[in-house]
C-alpha cells in the first residue's frame, strides 16, 4: 500500500522534474537485479549470478549509468557448447568497456559493436550466441539511450503507464536476432546478426521513471498489466524496495512459466501463429529494475 505522502512525494518530484526546464541536477539509475535460471535437465530452478544462460551487468562511469542483459541461445548445448559462456563474456566485456570509459553514452550500439569485436580478440575460441539489450542513462542530459538486438528488451513506466518500450527483433517464430560466433565453415548455417542491426532509441526521462530491463523469460510470461501491478508496490527509491519489487516480479514470472493452464503472452502469440499451445514458457528469467533518481555519490 503506497502511502499518500510518499506517493505524493513521488508525483510531486515527477511533476517538478517535468516542469523545470533547467533541471541541472544529475540523474542516476538505482538498479536491482533478480532472476532465475532454468535448469534444463533436472527440471528444477537454480538461482545464480548468471541466471542460467542469461547474463546481465550494471556499471557506471563518470557521466553515465549503464545496464545490459543478454539471453544466451540454448540450442548450442546440443553441440557441446556452453551457451552461458558467450552471454556472460559479452556482458562482462560491456561492463569493462563502461568502467574504463571506452564508450559514448549517446551510442549504445557502439557498446555492443565494440564488445563483440573484443570477444573476437580473445585467445580463447569462444562459440555461442545471445541477444543483447543495453540501456544508458546520460546523467547530465537526462536522456536514456538504448540499443536492442533480439527479443530481450526494456519498458519505461511513468505514472503507472508504459511510456516507452523496445521492439522485439525476430527472424521467425522463437528465433530472435542474435550476436554469434560460429564454428568455421558454419557461417551460412548458423544465424549471426551484426551488432549494427540493433535497434536504438533515445528519449528524455524524468525523476521517478521506472525502467525495467529483462530477457524474454519475463515478457513471454507476464503481460504488461501484471508487470504494472507489481510496480505499483514500489514505494520509494531506495535500493531495498527496488530489490523487493524486482524479486516479486521475477518470482511471479517464474511461477507463471510453469503453469500449464495459464495463457501466457508466449502462448497467445503462438496461437496467433497457428500453434495450439497453452501455458507458460519455462525459460531463464532476468530482471533489472531501475528508478531514475537524483545522483548522489
Amino acid at each position, binding site marked *: 500500500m503506497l502511502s499518500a505522502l510518499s506517493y505524493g512525494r513521488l508525483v510531486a518530484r515527477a511533476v517538478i522534474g517535468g516542469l523545470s526546464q533547467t533541471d541541472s541536477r544529475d540523474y542516476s539509475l538505482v538498479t536491482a537485479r533478480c532472476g532465475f535460471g532454468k535448469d534444463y535437465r533436472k527440471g528444477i530452478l537454480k538461482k545464480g549470478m548468471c541466471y542460467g544462460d542469461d547474463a546481465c551487468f550494471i556499471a557506471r562511469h563518470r557521466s553515465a549509468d549503464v545496464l545490459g542483459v543478454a539471453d544466451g541461445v540454448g540450442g548450442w548445448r546440443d553441440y557441446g557448447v556452453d551457451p552461458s559462456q558467450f552471454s556472460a563474456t559479452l556482458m562482462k566485456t560491456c561492463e569493462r568497456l563502461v568502467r*574504463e570509459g571506452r564508450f559514448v553514452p549517446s551510442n549504445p550500439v557502439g557498446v555492443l559493436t565494440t564488445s563483440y569485436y573484443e570477444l573476437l*580478440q580473445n*585467445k580463447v575460441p569462444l562459440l555461442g550466441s545471445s541477444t543483447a539489450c543495453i540501456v544508458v542513462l546520460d546523467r547530465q542530459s537526462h536522456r536514456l539511450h538504448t540499443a536492442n538486438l533480439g527479443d530481450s528488451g526494456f519498458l519505461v513506466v511513468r505514472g503507472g503507464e508504459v511510456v516507452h518500450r523496445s521492439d522485439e527483433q525476430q527472424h521467425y517464430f522463437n528465433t530472435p536476432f542474435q550476436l554469434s560466433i560460429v564454428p568455421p565453415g558454419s557461417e551460412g548455417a548458423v544465424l549471426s546478426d551484426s551488432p549494427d542491426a540493433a535497434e536504438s532509441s533515445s528519449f528524455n526521462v524524468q525523476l521517478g521513471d521506472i525502467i525495467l530491463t529483462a530477457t524474454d523469460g519475463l515478457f513471454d510470461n507476464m503481460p504488461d498489466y501484471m508487470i504494472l501491478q507489481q510496480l505499483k508496490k514500489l514505494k520509494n527509491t531506495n535500493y531495498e524496495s527496488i530489490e523487493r519489487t524486482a524479486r516479486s516480479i521475477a518470482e511471479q514470472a517464474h511461477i507463471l512459466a510453469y503453469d500449464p493452464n495459464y495463457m501466457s503472452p508466449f502462448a497467445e502469440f503462438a496461437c496467433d501463429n497457428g500453434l495450439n499451445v497453452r501455458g507458460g514458457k519455462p525459460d531463464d528469467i532476468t530482471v533489472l529494475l531501475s528508478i531514475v533518481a537524483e545522483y548522489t555519490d
Partner: protein
Amino acid sequence: ASPVKFPMLTLLSMFYYICLRRRSRSGTRGEALTSRRAVESGQRAVLPVSVEMEQYAKEVLDFSSHYGSENSMSYTMWNLAGVPNVYPSSGDFTQTAVFRAYGTWWEQCASAPPPFRRTPKGFYSQDYIELGFEEPVYPTAVEVLETYYPGAIVQILACSHNPFSQNPPTDVRWEVLWSGEPTKVLTPQARQFSPNIKHISFPTNLLRLEVNSSLLDYYTELDAVILRGVKERPMLALYKMPIIDISGLSDSEEELSDVGGPFRQGGDGKHQRTGNGYFDKLPYELVQLILSHLTLPDLCRLAQSCKLLHQHCCDPLQYTQLSLQPYWARLSDASLGHLQSRCTLLQRLNLSWTGNRGALTLAGFSSFMKGCGLSLVCLELSCCHFLNEACLEIISQTCPELQELNLSSCDRLHPQAFTHISKLTRLRRLVLYRTKIEQTAILNILTFCIELRHLNLGSCVRIEDYDVVASMLAARCHSLCSLDLWRCRNLTDRGLAELVSGCRMLEELDLGWCPTLQSSTGCFQHLARSLPRLRKLFLTANRTVCDSDVEELAASCPSLQHLDILGTRLVSCASLKKLLQSCPKLLLLDISFCSQIDMRVVQELCGLFPNVAIKKSFTQ
C-alpha cells in the same frame, strides 16, 4: 634554590612536552589509500603532505610493443593503467598488459639483427612502458602486479618532468630507481614485485618500466603498477639520503656531452715528458683492439686521459657500430654533435628509444646524419618519437647505402613520411611494426626496394588491402625471406596464394590474428607445398586451422622450427604427432587454447619429443 627550580621545571616540562608531541606526529605514518572506489569515481583523496600515498597509474603514455590489437582492450599496454583486473589470480587473461614477444624465439629468426658491439653488460632492456600518475610524489616504493610468467622487469626509472603539465619539457631528468637482471620465476603464478628502490631528490609522476622476457617460458603479463610516495620531500631522519644530491655513482650517470671536451694544451707538455708508458710500445692496431672492448662511456672518458689515447679513442674505426640505445635517457643534440666527428665510417647505428621529449631535434639529427650517412648500412630508430617527415627525408638523402631500417612503434610519424623510404633502393630489412604507413606508400616502397629480404608490417592498421600488398611483394620482392603480417586485417587466400608463388625464398611467415584466411580454401596447404624451406609459421588465433593443414606441413616442410596454431578447435593429437615426427628441427610449438589438446596430451607429447618447447597457456 626554589625560585630557580620552578621556572626550570616548567621550562623542562614544556620542552619535554613539545618533543613528545613532535615525536608522535612524525611517528604516525598513516597510509591513506587512494581507494579503488575513489579512483573509479574520479575523486582525489585530500591528504596532509607528510602522509604516504598510494596511486595506480592514471595513463599509459608510451610503450615499445604489445600483443593486442590497436584500439582494443585485450592484451594491450593500456591495461596497465588503473586498478588491477586479474590479480591475485594467475592466468592468460585479456585484461592484462602483454608485450609482443618472449623468450629467445624472435632472436633465433633470420629477421633478427645481430647485437651491437659495446652493449654494456648491465643493459638488458628489450621493451618498455611509460606510465603517468596523477600526483607527483617522492617515491618510497613501486609495486608491479604481474599475473603471468613474472620476472621480466629489469629496470624502473622515474622522470622529473610532469607529463600532464601544459608546459613543454625542460631539463628532463631520468633517475634509475631500481635495476636488475632478467629472472625466471619457478612457477607462472601471479606475484607482486616490489624491489627496493633508490630515493631520489625530485618528485615524480612519470615512471618507466623496462623488461626483458628472454628467460621466460611464455608471455609475461602485467596487471597494474602502484606508486607509493610522499608529497613532501622526506626528512633526513626518515630516509638515509644525503642532503647534497650526488647524482649517482654508477657508470651510467656519465654525461655523454662531456666527451670530447676541450683538451687543454697546457697539460700536454707534462704528459709528453712522462710518455704513455707501454702504450707507446704497442702497435696501433693492438691498442685499437684493446679499446674495442670498452663501453662507449669508458671510451669517451679514456679519450680525456692523454693525447695518444685521445687519438685512439676518436679514431673512426672504433665507431663502425654505435649503439646509443642504452643511453637513451641522456642522449641529446649536443651528444650527437660531439660524436659526429668520429662517426665518418659508421655502418650500424642504433638510436632506438632516444630523443623523446625534446632531447633530439631535426637540426641535431640531420647534422649527424649528414656526417655519417654515407657509409651507413643499418639504422635502428625504434620508438623514436622525435622523428618527423623531414627526418625521413634527410635519411633518404644522406644514406644511399642503407640496407636496414627499423621504425618499429614510431606511431606518431605522419603517413606522408614513409614515402621517402622508396628512395632507399638498397633496403634489405624494413621494420614498420605499429606505424601509420598507408597503402600507396608501401606499394611505392615495394616497387623500388626490390632487394627486400625482411619485411615487418605487423599491426599496420592503415594499410587498406593486404591482398594488393601481397601481390606486389610477389611481383617485385623475389628475395623475400621473412614476412611479418601480424594482425593484418584483410589478407585472403588470394593474396596468400600470390605471395607464396612469387616469394619462393620465404622462410618465415607470421600470419597471426589474420581473421580472413580460411583453411577451407586450401590456402594453408598450398602454402606448405609452396614453401619447402619454411622455418617459421605463425597462424595464431586462426580458428580454421585443421588436421589437414598440420599434416600438409608435416609432409612438405621438414625444416619447420617454430609453429604457432593457438586457439583452433580443429586440430587433434594425431596430426600433431605426425608433425612432431616429420619435423625433426621443430623447437617451438604453441598449441594454447586448442580445445582438443588437453594437458594430458601435452605431457605425452613433451615426453615423446623432449627437444620441442610445447606451449599450452591457461586461464586458470
